[in-house]
C-alpha cells in the first residue's frame, strides 16, 4: 500500500478491498464491551485540523485511541498557527515531536501533498479544500458493500454541489475504481466541467434517474465554499434537486439513502426522508471509525522494513 493516503488514486482496487475487509474486523472490535486493542501501542497520531471539523476529527481520534495509539489534537485556533507560523514550520515541529502519522484537514487543496515533503510519518488526508476526502469515500464504500453485498455494478447517484465537494470527487473515483456505475446530478453550475473524464455519467434531471438507483447519495449544499450564487434560491434547489418524500418513494425497494453529514434538513434532504429506515446516515458514522482504524492499522502496523514483504510461509513459520 502507498505510504500516504492523499487521494483515492493512491489506492488500488485491491488496497480498497483490503481496507474494507480489515474494517470488518474492527467493526467486531467496536461491538465488544472493551472496544480497544493494543495494536498501535506506543505510536503517535497527530490530528492536524486547520479547518473546522467535528465528526471527522472525533472519528479519527476515536479510531487512533481504540488502536491504543497516543493522539494529539492540533487545531488552528489557539495554536502557533494563529500566531502566524507557516504550515511548513508547524509540520517540522510535529515531525520533531515524532509523529508516526499526521491526519491533516486544510482548506487549501494540495496541502497534504506538501506535507509529505516535510515529514517522515504517514500523511492521511482528512479533507483538503475542494480536492479529496478519501476516508469519507472509504467509509461510504464500506457501508454500501455491507448493506448491498457488493460494489461492482451498483448504480449510484451523487446529487448536489459536486463542484465544491471533495467527498463527491473521492467517492466517484472510488466507486469507478470498484466497478460501480456513477451518475452525478445537480445544477449545471455545480457540476465540474471535467466530470465525464472521471468515468461517470452526468445528468441534470434527478427524477429520471431515481427509479434505477441502488444508492442515492445526497451532498450538502456548501454555502460557505460558494463564492458566487450558483442557484437562484434554496427553495428552488430543494424543488429541483432535493430528496423529497415523493422522490424517496420513487427509489427502488432495497436502495439506500446516504449523506456525508452534516445535513441541511429541508435543503438537500427533507427532514422526514433523513429519518427513513433506508437512510443509513448514522451507520456511515459508525463505519467511519472502523474504516479509519483499518487504514491506520494497515499504514502504521507495517513499515518495520527489516524484512522484505515476505512470503506467507515465513509468516506461518513465525506464528505458532
Amino acid at each position: 500500500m502507498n505510504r500516504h493516503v492523499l487521494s483515492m488514486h493512491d489506492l488500488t482496487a485491491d488496497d480498497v478491498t483490503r481496507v474494507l475487509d480489515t474494517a470488518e474486523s474492527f467493526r467486531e472490535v467496536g461491538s465488544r464491551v472493551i472496544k480497544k486493542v493494543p495494536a498501535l501501542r506506543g505510536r503517535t497520531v497527530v490530528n492536524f485540523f486547520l479547518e473546522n471539523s467535528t465528526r471527522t476529527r472525533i472519528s479519527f481520534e476515536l479510531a487512533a485511541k481504540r488502536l491504543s495509539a497516543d493522539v494529539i489534537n492540533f487545531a488552528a485556533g489557539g495554536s502557533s498557527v494563529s500566531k502566524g507560523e507557516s504550515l511548513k514550520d508547524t509540520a517540522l515541529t510535529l515531525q520533531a515531536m515524532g509523529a508516526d502519522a499526521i491526519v491533516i484537514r486544510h482548506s487549501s487543496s494540495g496541502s497534504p501533498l506538501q506535507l509529505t515533503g516535510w515529514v517522515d510519518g504517514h500523511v492521511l488526508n482528512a479533507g483538503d479544500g475542494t480536492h479529496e476526502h478519501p476516508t469519507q469515500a472509504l467509509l461510504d464504500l464500506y457501508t454500501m458493500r455491507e448493506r448491498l453485498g457488493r460494489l461492482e455494478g451498483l448504480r449510484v447517484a451523487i446529487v448536489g454541489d459536486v463542484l465544491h465537494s471533495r467527498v463527491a470527487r473521492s467517492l466517484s473515483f472510488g466507486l469507478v475504481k470498484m466497478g460501480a456505475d456513477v451518475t452525478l446530478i445537480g445544477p449545471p453550475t455545480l457540476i465540474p466541467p471535467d466530470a465525464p473524464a472521471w468515468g461517470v455519467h452526468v445528468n441534470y434531471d434527478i427524477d429520471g434517474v431515481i427509479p434505477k438507483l441502488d444508492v442515492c447519495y445526497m451532498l450538502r449544499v456548501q454555502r460557505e465554499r460558494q463564492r458566487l450564487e450558483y442557484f437562484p434560491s434554496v427553495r428552488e434547489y430543494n424543488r429541483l434537486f432535493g430528496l423529497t418524500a415523493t422522490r424517496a418513494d420513487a427509489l427502488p425497494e432495497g436502495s439506500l439513502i446516504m449523506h456525508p453529514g452534516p445535513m441541511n434538513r429541508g435543503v438537500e434532504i427533507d427532514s422526514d426522508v433523513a429519518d427513513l429506515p433506508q437512510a443509513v446516515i448514522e451507520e456511515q458514522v459508525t463505519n467511519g471509525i472502523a474504516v479509519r482504524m483499518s487504514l491506520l492499522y494497515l499504514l502504521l502496523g507495517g513499515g518495520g522494513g527489516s524484512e522484505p514483504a515476505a512470503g506467507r510461509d515465513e509468516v506461518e513459520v513465525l506464528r505458532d
Partner: protein
Amino acid sequence: MSARGLLLDEDDIRRALTRIAHEIIERDKGAAGLVLVGIANRGDHIARRLADEIERIEGTAVPVGVLDITFYRDDIGLRAEAPEVHETRIDVGINDRTVVLVDDVLFTGRTIRAAMDALTDFGRPARIRLAVLVDRGHRELPIRADFVGKNVPTRRSDDVSVRVRELDGDDAVLVREALTSEVTR
C-alpha cells in the same frame, strides 16, 4: 529446504483429537461451563472438531468461538507489512467459564500470550486451558499446553505446517527441514 515429511496423517489426527476431547471432559468432569476458542486460521477448525467429538461423547453441545490475535501481536510494526487480519467471533459470554484455547501448532508461545490478552478483553474466564495438535518446542515464554496431540522435536528453522480439510482439502501435519542448520529468524 528439503522434502516434506509426513508427521501425522488423517487417521493420526482423528485419533489425537478424540483423545484430547476425552482428556478435556475428564479434567473438568464433564462439559458443563466449557467454551472452546480456536485461534484463527486453523485452530478454529480444530476447535469445532473437538466440540463435535465432546458432544458425541457427553451429549452436551459446547459453544465454539474463533479468535484472531493479530491486534495483540508483539511484532506489529516490526515487519514490512501489517499482518493480515481474520475473523473474531465469540458469541457466548466467557465470564466464569472454562475456556479451552485451541491452536494447531505450539511453538514460541507468543501467539498464546496474545490470545490470553485478547480473551481478557472479552471477559474473565474461571480458567484458561490450552489444547494444541502439535507441540514443536522452542518456547520463548513460560507457556505450556494442557492437552497435546503430539510432541515433535524440531529444529527452530524447520517449518511445521498443519493442513485441515476445511481450508486445505485434506488433514495432515507436515514437517519441512531446513537445508542448513542456519536459524532464519
